[in-house]
């Protein structure tokens, strides 16, 4: 943290820079762009992935036939090398003739869509594989949570003749609260720290066209290892840290035991 107030280029003398690094940050339009991107990843990513994964976990829990196999299908993306997968998705998004999605569109005579080379589509296009890769993780946690709910509660509900929907909202969701808290906080941290997908899917021009997909962590990485500006990188880390801390505390506060 001290480094953020210094002017340190790794080996050279560390000189005291005071608030200079923070000033530079404040005045840098790219930083604000990056700041916004980071929040877009968070605000879109966390709810979308949690809703989808709860939906799947809830229904998967009630499915017996080939249960293990289907669960494995959902979990596989999480187990596969993020780098390799980022590239496969990257290929899917390419224009014709090599992009799977655009080739499919062309089949139906629909004009092709620029996914990654676009200032508006690129961020959602990168968010999709990030959500995709994390789903398996969230589903498993949800399922473990659902199964940790003592059976007796459901027995009692059934005896009382409570409807399915009511059971979901009166028993399952409230008892899942610790699981939900964990997933909300953890996936928020995950989306705020998104890096692998962005870095690999935009490796030619890291951060996408005109920085439209660049998250804070990538910006930090570039400051530290491409520009060797450790002081500036540290200042950004402090900002990221504060954001994460505030967001997590806020979420824990909202979801606290009442």
């Amino acid at each position, binding site marked *: 943290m001290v480094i953020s107030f210094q002017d340190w280029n*790794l080996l050279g003398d560390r000189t005291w820079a005071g608030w200079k690094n923070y000033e530079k940050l404040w005045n840098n339009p790219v930083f604000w762009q990056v700041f916004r991107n980071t929040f877009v990843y968070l605000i879109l990513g966390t709810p979308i992935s949690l809703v989808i994964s709860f939906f799947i976990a809830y229904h998967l829990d009630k499915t017996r036939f080939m249960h293990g196999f289907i669960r494995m299908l959902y979990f596989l993306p999480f187990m596969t090398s993020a780098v390799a997968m980022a590239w496969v998705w990257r*290929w899917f998004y390419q*224009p014709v003739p090599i992009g799977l999605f655009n080739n499919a569109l062309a089949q139906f005579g629909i004009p092709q869509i620029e996914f990654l080379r676009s200032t508006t589509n690129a961020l959602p296009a990168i968010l999709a594989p990030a959500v995709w890769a994390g789903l398996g993780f969230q589903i498993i946690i949800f399922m473990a949570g659902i199964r940790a709910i003592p059976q007796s509660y459901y027995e009692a509900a059934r005896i009382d003749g409570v409807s399915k929907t009511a059971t979901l909202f009166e028993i399952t969701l409230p008892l899942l609260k610790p699981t939900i808290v964990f997933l909300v906080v953890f996936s928020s941290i995950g989306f705020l720290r998104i890096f692998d997908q962005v870095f690999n899917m935009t490796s030619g021009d890291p951060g996408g066209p005109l920085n439209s997909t660049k998250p804070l962590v990538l910006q930090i990485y570039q400051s530290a290892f491409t520009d060797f500006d450790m002081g500036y990188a540290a200042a950004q880390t402090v900002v990221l840290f504060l954001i994460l801390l505030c967001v997590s505390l806020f979420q824990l506060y909202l979801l606290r035991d009442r």
Partner: protein
Amino acid sequence: MKFTKMKALVFATATSTTALFSTAAHAVEIEYWQYFFGARVTAMEQLIENFEAVNPDITVTMTHFPYADYRTKVAAAIPAGEGPDVVQLFYGWLNDYKAASLIQPLPADSFDADTIDAEFFPMVSAMREGENYWALPTAVRSLALFYNTRLFDDAGIDGPPETLDEMLEIGAQLTKRDGAGNITQAGLTMGMTAQDHHWFREGLVRQFGGEPYLNDYTTVNYNTPEGVSAMEFYVGLGEENGIGAVGFMDEPQAAFKAGRAGMHIDGSFRIGSLNKTRGLKWAVTELPATGEGMRSNYSSYWVNAITTKAEDEKYDAAVKFMQYVTSDEAMQIWLDVVGELPAKPSVGLTEANSNDATYGPFIRGLAYANTTKFVNESAQRKVLIDAVERVKLQGMSVADSLAIAAAAEQELLDAFYTSK
């Protein structure tokens, strides 16, 4: 594997010397780092072997790392006092490393700056500062135009383009589109992310009558009518009636390797990878000239430098090693094993080399090549990538976009040169 053996050997030598309190043979171990590339590693092993034969009191340990993460690795290790005594870096990173005090200048008594100026290709002088050189290459690279001979034959084209106009003409013949107007085969690959930003800076801007930088690369000068026409030419290549498209098949070299592009501008380091591509028939020619026959090229190189970690006897050993890897003998080995062009005209510009079908166009290109003095290569590349994207994605005019780019790049240059 080889590396471990070497390390074991070093270890054995080190322990035995301490055990004997030997006074005579005092073995110095220095460490050398480069990125991993099969042929470069083999060549360096050979050089180390030769060097150790002549200098039995010095042991060189080579370590290599994946290319993509080489910089990260170096940046983490050197501040901790770990890492190499002699390190290989891209010349464009030199200023970064210098600014970060990761490397130290070569001693003027062993590396006389004027002698080097006289003996090496002129672009190497980008490594000079005052009376000192900071680093020296073993080999150099330049750009040339690769073309797919099978596609040329199919389209009934006799030979490669000599001028930019011919390139447009041939490119148009080779470009294929589907019903919706999407390119399915490109005449020329495009991408500022690859080598095109070099082609623009040192090639096109000069060919359109401009001068990309002034005052020894401290002032950006492509925001001129000449620069704008050069950028208009480049952007025009990817217009609706153009001969290519930015982002076609993701990466330019991928399009060329897949046989989906007729022409491709790239560096000599791509030769090996193209040779390995099954079913691809290609040849290479010099970068196209203007109508008046004016050519301009960009040259780059990887240099070896002594890090700030090397002190005392290690420093002396590192200097000796540096002298050897920049010798004529080393350059010849490098050309034979890696296929990269020697950094001295006396070794490189032999009759046989400049008439070589593959290396010839690159070597001839060296004669009219310039080397940009980057202060931060990736940031400066990003400036030109953005310049093109603003035109393509946001519909900005070329002149406006180039003006923003020039201002942004000037800011980078100023930040670097004033902080010194």
